[in-house]
């Protein structure tokens, strides 16, 4: 994607580039980039949305799970003291660690706090503290220098008619879509998935149906942590690995979730794609460094005209 970004920047800065691709081609290219970016946001946002749906917790520390995923894979892949594994096993281990970390935070922190009856707003502020803590622990170990993985860094783009895409990006899109379909399958077709949706839909009745609420919430956190780590590796691959990458992505995840309708996992997926596409397409007209700003602005516009989001149910409006 970086290669295309350079291209887009050049296009944005130079006035009419006569020999460059036409607007339609550039738009198609931006759309593909947008789908890729949206897929990465979606992978991470789904977990955040499921956590909100089942526990009503707005987890500000979700971005750090993304960063930790990317950084763990980096350590295993090219870290000075790391084993120097290939990226694929490194990513796999990072996902497992992300999932374990998600589960650990739920089990060791949120569950006891819920049991103590700590209010939602206090929990919300605790996630902010946790986010600061985790992010700067990563900073201490990882440093401020942006890094890349050893494999798949620079690739020749495949020429698919008007659009060019590297095999790496193509695979990332394909894998992301597969993972999202997998999550949808899990939610829609499995017993655990139905339990997760049931818990979001009517917690008391879920418990009365024999669902062990704590167990389902734990599963959601493990799933959310794993997905965040995977999204982190993808994000690190397409862009760059930094200590605050997840935090920067967090706002886009929130934007996707709200855009799609707070509390709906599918809404979060749809919203994330919208956000990714808006971000990338904006560079057709505006400077590249404003991509995220336009995506967030889309969120504010949606709040103005349709606060319940694209797929959301209408909320009480006082």
């Amino acid at each position, binding site marked *: 994607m970086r290669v295309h970004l350079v291209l887009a920047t050049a296009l944005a800065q130079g006035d009419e580039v006569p020999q460059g691709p036409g607007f339609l081609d550039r738009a198609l290219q931006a759309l593909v980039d947008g789908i890729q970016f949206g897929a990465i946001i979606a992978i991470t946002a789904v977990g955040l949305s499921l956590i909100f749906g089942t526990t009503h917790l707005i987890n500000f520390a979700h971005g750090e799970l993304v960063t930790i995923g990317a950084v763990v894979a980096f350590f295993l892949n090219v870290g000075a003291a790391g084993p120097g594994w290939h990226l694929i096993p490194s990513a796999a281990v990072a996902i497992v660690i992300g999932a374990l970390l998600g589960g650990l935070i739920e089990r060791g922190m949120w569950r006891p706090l819920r049991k103590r009856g700590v209010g939602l707003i206090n929990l919300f502020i605790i996630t902010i503290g946790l986010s600061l803590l985790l992010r700067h622990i990563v900073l201490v170990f990882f440093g401020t220098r942006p890094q890349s993985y050893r494999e798949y860094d620079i690739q020749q783009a495949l020429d698919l008619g008007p659009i060019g895409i590297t095999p790496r990006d193509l695979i990332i899109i394909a894998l992301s879509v597969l993972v999202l379909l997998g999550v949808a399958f899990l939610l829609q077709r499995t*017993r655990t998935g139905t339990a997760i949706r*049931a818990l979001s839909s009517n917690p008391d009745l879920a*418990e*009365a149906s024999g669902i062990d609420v704590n167990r389902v919430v734990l599963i959601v956190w493990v799933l959310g942590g794993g997905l965040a780590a995977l999204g982190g590796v993808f994000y690190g691959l397409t862009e760059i690995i930094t200590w605050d990458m997840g935090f920067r992505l967090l706002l886009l995840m929130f934007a996707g979730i709200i855009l799609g309708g707070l509390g709906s996992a599918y809404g979060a997926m749809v919203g994330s794609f919208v956000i990714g596409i808006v971000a990338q397409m904006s560079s057709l007209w505006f400077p590249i460094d404003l991509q995220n700003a336009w995506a967030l602005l889309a969120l504010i516009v949606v709040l103005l005209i349709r606060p319940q989001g694209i797929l959301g149910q209408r909320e009480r409006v006082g």
Partner: protein
Amino acid sequence: MDELDEPALLVAERIFAGYVRGVDVLAGCGLLLNEGELVGVIGPNGAGKSTLVKAMFGLLRVRTGRVTFRGRDVTNEPAHKLVAKGIGYVPQRQNVFPTLTVEENLRMGTYLQPKEFTRRAEAVQELFPVLAQRRNQKASSMSGGERQMLSMGRALMMEPDVLLLDEPSAGLSPRFQDQVFERVREINATGVAILMVEQNARRCLQICDRGYVLDQGTNAYTGTGLELLHDEKVIELYLGTLARAR
């Protein structure tokens, strides 16, 4: 109730419970349900009927008192464990999963025995044909009466030994109320013991084997359904001066 030889299926003894610290909605009431029985709990609004069921089902903390199921103490056990033991519960409000389809709602009934789904779903859909017709619709699109059917269907999917029904006729049109009571009897006829809390005292007592009348969190009267149905004291308790003025 202590002199019974055989232990009853489900027993609540001298229950104290409430929602706000220091305020007991239930002040020492109790009841017992035998195998295969249909027992009604009636009483004026605010008597604590629904509260009693919630306390028995682990949704509300019992402060003092004891709940036993098949002779074993289950006081304050979480609801999901009671479900596993064979107690089904149909809440009065919010008794379906609105964002799930009808079939998924039923599936939640067999959450603990997923393999049983197909067999039981057939039986339940026979009892409630509307559920088969609407299988793939979201529960949120159903009418109040249909939701009540779905909710009972979901509880029956558990093949419970005991079914706790919290005001199944509340908020329903007369036609649906009749259907609901009809179904309750049918379910009971299959051998499921039912404890039903009802506002609609006449219809409830007509179909019940026995009834309890609650008043202000304590037991006021008890007797067979027909006895209570014709008991002037019950009518007076219900309507207070309203009845006296007649």
